[in-house]
Every structure is written in C-alpha cells, then in structure tokens.
C-alpha cells in the first residue's frame, strides 16, 4: 500500500489534478459596465439615426444629397460611426428642422439647417471671379 501511494507517477498525476482544480479563472470575474454618455442609451441610437434620416429624406435634402453624389446609405453609414454625444448633437439639429415646420418659411429654415448637415463643396470658383477691393 505504501509503495502504491508513493508511486512517483501517481503522486505527479494527483499533484497536477490538484493544481488544475485549484486554478482560479483567468482575468477575474465578469466585466464592469463602461462609462456612460448622459444622453442616448444605446437603445436610442437607432431612434436618433432614423430621426436624422427622416429629415434627410425630405425633398430639399434629397436634392442636396444628389448634387453631392451621396446616397442615403452613405449618410446612414456615417451616422453609425458617431459616438453617442456626437449623434445626439446631430439629432438635435434634425429636431430643429422638424420644428421649422412645413410652410414657406419653414422650408427656407429647413434648407438652411440641412445645409449645415450636408455640405456642398465645389471647386473654388473665386479664381475666375472679378477681384474687387474688399
């Protein structure tokens, strides 16, 4: 019996088994929740993106996007890359468009605000324009 228990291979196997059972999980337990933006929990991101896309689907915005040769997919893709606070800022500007209303003045205001969202950049034409004294 003593010889059996002192068998080197048996002792080694039992030692390894004890180590295996005693090993603590690596990298600790679970993971803490990361810091939050005060606005827009992740569940609201999709809502905000849809709100912005709703504004950009207005006829005046669509024309602007067409002139820029950007499609709605490009815009949505850009929006998904924004972090929560940046997305909220853009969504707030989209809210301003909605608040402008649908009347003539509302369309003008909406157009102005939409141009803040969608910038049209053309080749600088000033080189060909008559220079006058400022």
């Amino acid at each position, binding site marked *: 019996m003593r010889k059996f228990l002192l068998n080197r291979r048996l002792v080694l196997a039992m030692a390894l088994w004890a180590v295996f059972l005693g090993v603590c999980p690596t990298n600790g337990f679970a*993971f803490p*929740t990361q810091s939050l933006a005060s606005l827009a929990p992740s569940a609201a991101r999709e809502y905000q993106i849809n709100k912005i896309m709703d504004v950009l689907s207005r006829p005046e915005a669509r024309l602007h996007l067409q002139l820029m040769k950007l499609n709605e997919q490009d815009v949505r893709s850009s929006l998904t890359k924004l972090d929560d606070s*940046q997305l909220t800022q853009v969504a707030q500007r989209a809210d301003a468009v909605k608040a402008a209303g649908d009347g003539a003045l509302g369309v003008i205001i909406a157009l102005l605000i939409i141009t*803040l969202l969608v910038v049209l*950049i053309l080749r600088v034409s*000033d080189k060909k324009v008559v220079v006058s004294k400022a």
Partner: protein
Amino acid sequence: MSYRRPPPAEKGIGSIHLIEGVPPVAQKAYQCGPAAMESVFHYWGNPTDAAEITTALYKPGSHGVLDFTLAEFARSRGFWTQILAVPEGENSLGELKTWVLRKIPPIVMIKTGILWVPTYHFVVLKGFSDQERVFYANTGEPETYVIDYGALASRWKPSGNWCLILCPPERVDWELPESAAEDLALYAERFGKQDLAEKWYLRILEKNPANQTARFNLGNIYLKSNRVQEAKIIYEALLKEKPGWGPAGNNLAWIYLEEGRASEAIEVLQTAFKNGAERHFDILDTLGTAYCRTPDTQRGRDYLNEALGQTPVADKVSLDLIHRHLSECGVLAHKS
C-alpha cells in the same frame, strides 16, 4: 466679388493677433475641408496629409462631405471637437477673435456661391487686426489671405455661423456647458486620459452634484485607477437613489466579486432586477459568475446562458468572455 485679398505689405503695430505655425495648405478640387484640417492638424503637431484625410472622408465621385464627419475624423485622431453655431449679432465675430486669442484656430464655413446656388467653403482663421478690420485666413491657397470683417460676416451668416473647433483635449481650459463637459470627460476617459477625465467630471459635479451619470463615470475612473473604496462609495450612493440602476449595480457587484464576496454581489444584482434593472448581458454575466462561486452553479450557468442570448452577435469579445465564464463554471461545478 472676392471675399479675400492678400495681406497688406505693412502691418499696423500692436493691432495684430496672429497664431504662428498654422501653414496655408493648397487644396485640390472639392477638398477644402481636408486642406483646412491638414493646416490645423499641423499646428497641433499631428501632421496629416490632406490626401489621407480625403481618402478617409470622401467617397470616390462625391462632391461633398457631411460636416460631422470632419469632426468625427478629427476625434479619431485624438482631437476633441466642437461644432458651433455662433449666435448672430454684433459679437459673432468677437467669438471668432476669442478663439484666435486662445491660440485655437477655428475652421469656419462660409458661402462662396452666388444667388441661390449654395456653395460653401472651409477656411481656417489664424489672426485678426482690429485696426485694419481683417481676419488672416488659410483659404485653400498656398499663401495667407485676409478677409474683411464685413465680408466674413456676410458670408458666414448663410452657413448659420458654422464653426469647428478642434484641439487636444488637454488644451481645453475654458468653461464648457455641462453637456460639452460630459462629452469631453467621456472622450478623455475613452482615450485613456484618466486624470483629465477625472478633472472634468469633478468640475461637472462642482456645479451639478446631482449629475448621476457624471458620478457613475467618476466611480469608474476610481475603479480603473484602483481607488476601489472611493468607487464603492459612489456606486452604493447611486443605488440608494436609484435601486434599479443596472450599471451601478453591476459595477458594485463586480467589486464584491473581486473581493470574494459572491453572495453580496448576488444580492446587489437581484435587488437591481427587482427594481426594474434591464437584463443587460454584462449584468447577467456578473450575476451568473457570482452564482458560479456558490454551490448553486447550475443557476450560474442559467444566467450565463441568458447573457449569451442577450449579447449582440457582433460583440465577439463579450461572447468569448461569457463562454469562458461558462466553461470555468463547469470546472467549478465539477470541483464541488
């Protein structure tokens, strides 16, 4: 009518404020945005070629860029950004001068088209002279130009007085509205600048001690910097105010688990769920892991499986971690 002209040969003494080291960058077609950004990036010691910015921002064939993508690109390069719509009025140009005096060159959007054709252009303002009533600007040409106050004001207005500020987050030394301060603190934290984040969270809480998000995030800063007791105090206080707030419960439970106090971790999270906390996967994972440290390992595996079901498929890191916890739970079950 051009809005810009070369600077005068002789400058008035004592009336010029100029930021040195903001080089004019000649732009290519449709790329005044990248040219402006190259100029400002260079000033901040982060030289980035306009072509690289163009590749990142422009889809081939497109003739424009979304303004917030400029800001987003700058953020990806470690800059903090603010897009401002400066209120109209007598002092709107004064706001731009303030940025110059702070040695922070603003990028402004001005209208360069005529009549109803809306074309816009980005320029970088890097100086001004009240005596001559001009701003010094990088306008996409290889040399500096001046823009008269009146010309700038009239061309800036159609863009809604749009202005982009970008600078290293450490450089922000002016008062910010609470939402912008939160944005900066969170941005600093995510870029690993814990000291800066802590400074801004404390500033927010000086003015608004009730800001729960700022308190929670400050708790996280303490946790990351091993000030566990300070973090615990914050999470416990938040849970007293909002017993169903999952994030605070999760992080307090996480601390308890690290301290080997599984039953207390379970109590915190079960209380949070009873008070309406969302069954988010990270909380379920913590709860499952806690149960796996008790004889009730089967319950632990149940919660971990529920966590797996809640985890977005795209979140490979979380999925791998929860799978690992499940297999560790199996080992622990076998051991017991």
